[in-house]
């Protein structure tokens, strides 16, 4: 029987990063990946003369060489930073309402964005300044209390943190801002978490905003697949092994300890530790026999609900982005200023103007991203998988095209003429996400990130000896959090291996 120190199930961001760190420390590591390519969400696919970015919109935490962000340091630690070219995005985002009531572009710079917002909403000048001042004041406390894990944490030392960490983002906005359009303009990032401002933590909203403003949103030349390939390459160069087209059907648990896996082909491979980058649901429900699943993890699973999948249209245009009026890389398009309405809409199959939509165009900051004279555009909205699971397979393609059609119609209101230039198009639904990620209901954000399910209440802990989880089902989702989860877990596993 083949034997390794550590087996990693799944080559997503978390799995790759964990394996890369372990391989770097001379741990004998095997990565098993069901798909033929590494990355999970951090991937690409080719159609015609385009290579489409699947999931990365704005990478956080990179910063500059002079002022490196936490993610840059991590990528450096696995020796891949020199193989990646980062391009700083010059805009934070543009928000555009339908009908045309608001069209504002914010730069990733605190002073500039405050000024721009004040120009559009002069009657709320003070509130705007006050809100961003507060975000920064809160974050500087959260930095010590939460991110640096100050051992001397106390209410006296971090009063804002203790008062606001569990508040929802809407409550705090309401203290400073009143126009719903303004509130919308400062909070479209709720869609990066999946839970509207009134239900998500102010902490997450503040952290995202400060993170993007200070370390700048970034694009990777060649797309996120380049990063996945670079990390995978690092694993191999450090003596680790990756097997593609090799799914896992079972995690072997003996005497309360994870001690290996059985692959889809029935091969048993043993290991001293198993790191699962599969969803937490599949890890504990599909891969482990029920008698080995502890009550504690059953409780954690019951506490949570499953987040949205993505509905995406990947578009290759046979023209430059400017020709159809695309001037910013990140564009939020919305038909209602009420995020709760947009959130309810996410439970429905149909796409209407109430669905908040993100349009990303990579060529604006990286003209080499698509062939000369062309451009690549992705339209995304979030949809819970439940309604898609009701669609009979025989009607799936038809429904997919219907929904994409109405999404394109909405996009055309902001970018007239975009339809006439489409050379390649591919549509992904929550079912597509489910197919390629094996996530229940095609969730791309793991569990719903309600306040009660934030990291403060659901820490990423091991429930079976020798078994650990990485990726978006064990904390926040998104590139920086999932990559980070791999680094953190590699350290834990290394300590365990060394202790034995």
């Amino acid at each position, binding site marked *: 029987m083949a034997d390794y120190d550590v087996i990693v199930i799944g080559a997503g961001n978390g799995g790759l990063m964990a394996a890369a760190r372990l391989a770097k420390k001379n741990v004998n590591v095997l990565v098993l990946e069901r798909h033929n390519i590494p990355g999970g969400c951090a991937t*690409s696919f080719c159609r015609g003369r385009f290579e489409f970015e699947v999931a990365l919109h704005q990478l956080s935490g990179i910063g500059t060489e002079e002022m490196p962000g936490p993610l840059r340091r991590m990528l450096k630690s696995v020796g891949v930073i020199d193989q990646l070219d980062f391009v700083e995005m010059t805009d934070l985002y543009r928000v555009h309402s339908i009908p045309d009531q608001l069209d504002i572009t914010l730069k990733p710079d605190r002073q500039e964005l405050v000024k721009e917002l004040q120009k559009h909403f002069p009657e709320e000048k003070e509130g705007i300044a006050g809100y961003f001042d507060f975000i920064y004041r809160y974050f500087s406390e959260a930095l010590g209390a939460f991110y640096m894990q100050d051992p001397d944490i106390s209410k006296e030392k971090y009063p804002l943190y203790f008062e606001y960490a569990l508040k929802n983002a809407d409550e705090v906005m309401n203290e400073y801002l009143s126009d719903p359009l303004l509130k919308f303009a400062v909070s479209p990032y709720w869609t990066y978490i999946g839970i509207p401002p009134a239900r998500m933590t102010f902490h997450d909203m503040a952290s995202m905003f400060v993170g993007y403003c200070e370390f700048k949103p970034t694009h990777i030349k060649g*797309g996120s697949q380049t990063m996945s390939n670079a990390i995978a390459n690092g694993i191999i160069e450090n003596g680790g092994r990756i097997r593609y087209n090799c799914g896992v059907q079972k995690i072997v648990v003996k005497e309360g300890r994870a001690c290996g896996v059985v692959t889809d082909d029935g091969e048993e491979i043993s290991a001293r530790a198993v790191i699962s980058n599969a969803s937490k649901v599949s890890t504990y429900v599909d891969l482990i026999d029920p008698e080995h699943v502890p009550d504690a993890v059953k409780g954690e699973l019951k506490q949570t609900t499953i987040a949205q999948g993505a509905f995406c249209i990947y578009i290759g245009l046979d023209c430059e982005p400017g020709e159809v009026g695309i001037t910013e890389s990140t564009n939020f398009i919305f038909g209602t200023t009420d995020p709760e309405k947009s959130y309810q809409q996410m439970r429905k199959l149909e796409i209407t103007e109430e669905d908040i939509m993100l349009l990303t165009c990579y060529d604006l900051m990286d003209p080499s991203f698509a062939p000369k004279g062309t451009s690549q555009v992705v339209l995304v909205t979030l949809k819970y998988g439940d309604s898609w699971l009701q669609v009979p397979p025989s009607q799936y393609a038809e429904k997919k095209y219907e929904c994409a059609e109405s999404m394109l119609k909405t996009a055309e209101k902001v970018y007239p003429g975009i339809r006439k230039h489409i050379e390649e198009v591919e549509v992904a639904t929550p079912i597509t996400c489910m197919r390629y990620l094996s996530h229940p209901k095609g969730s791309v954000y793991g569990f719903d990130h309600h306040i009660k399910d934030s990291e403060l209440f659901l820490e990423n802990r091991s429930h079976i000896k020798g078994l650990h989880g990485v990726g978006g089902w064990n904390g926040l989702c998104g590139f920086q959090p999932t990559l980070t989860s791999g680094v953190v877990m590699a350290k834990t596993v290394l300590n365990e291996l060394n202790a034995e």
Partner: protein
Amino acid sequence: MKHEILEQMDGYGDIAKEIEISRKYGQDFSMERGEVARYINRLHPATIKYKITEIIDESPSTKTFRLAAQNNYLPPFQAGQYVSLFLEVNNIRTSRPYSISSSPDQTGHFDITVRRMENGLISNYMLDSLVVGDEIESSGPTGVFHYNPLIHDKTMVCLAGGCGITPFMSMVREITSRGLDRTIYLFYGSQGIDDMPFHSELTELSNKFNNINYIPVLENPDSGSQCKSGFITGDLIKDVLGGVGDKSFFICGPQAMYNFCVPELEKLGIARRKIRREMFGTPARIVEYNGWPDEIKGEDLFQISVNGSESFQSAAGVSLLVALENQGLVVPSICRSGECSMCRVKILSGKVFQPAGTPVRASDSQFGYAHSCVSYPLENLDILL
């Protein structure tokens, strides 16, 4: 964070209560065991097992194999898509993509239509050896050569050569049997009328349905034939269609046909985005392909070592995938045309030839990965599976 710290935070009590309730009454995911795989299997099964229920002679060189699922369930597909058959012939495990020629509304069976090829290991094996009742296996339906209502015009101009007729058969059959509001002009190029599968069915459908226009184009027509003769040229297309506006063009046939027809369409001023072409295997003779280095002959032998252990010799003119299969090494593959990336392998050292335009991800090239089905050794190779 420690519990006693959390307790001091504003709003903790309410959240703790919420957690208690959800832990007591929340959904028990154990009900979901196997659910993801079950659903995906209905839509995109990795493999389908069939029994051959009929073998139909279509023309002297062509037969249709009618495949019924052993479990009585076939997944949906879009007319124009293909399945890749997984076969073992002469102890070699391999795969071959075949477009489905039956209509998507025929849910009882898939038809695949196979033509005899010179030196066609698999096609000839199928035509000569398979009989009704044999069991056979394939991938799920896949591929992007199909009508897409988001970007395609309702009038489709289809150019078929030889066995490239099969995806269009599926489209024509679907449009007629479902009564779809779409029009097809099907130009079907062949040497002569006697070896032209589906000719009579297409003639009949074209007579019966106004939205199906069938235009056989024969290289060597019999004297007195009503058919168009020669090749499918731009002039001929324009003659039949009148205008070329508001139409989408689809091509499926051998390499030579693309080389000829694409420039013909471009001459008519048809935009690139209006032209779709199906991948149709690897070039028959790679050494004649554009960009192949003059100094290397197809029969030149190179040493190929795999995973640092096994090593064997293979010819430059044989794709890496076929070379590996011939050694009994299993490399998963589906499209065998460079498109699907299923067969990607890492080239640790040595150079391979890949036809220009092969859709390989940029970072795959950067880190030495190649699609083995369209990669040919130009030097000794060291590869990682």
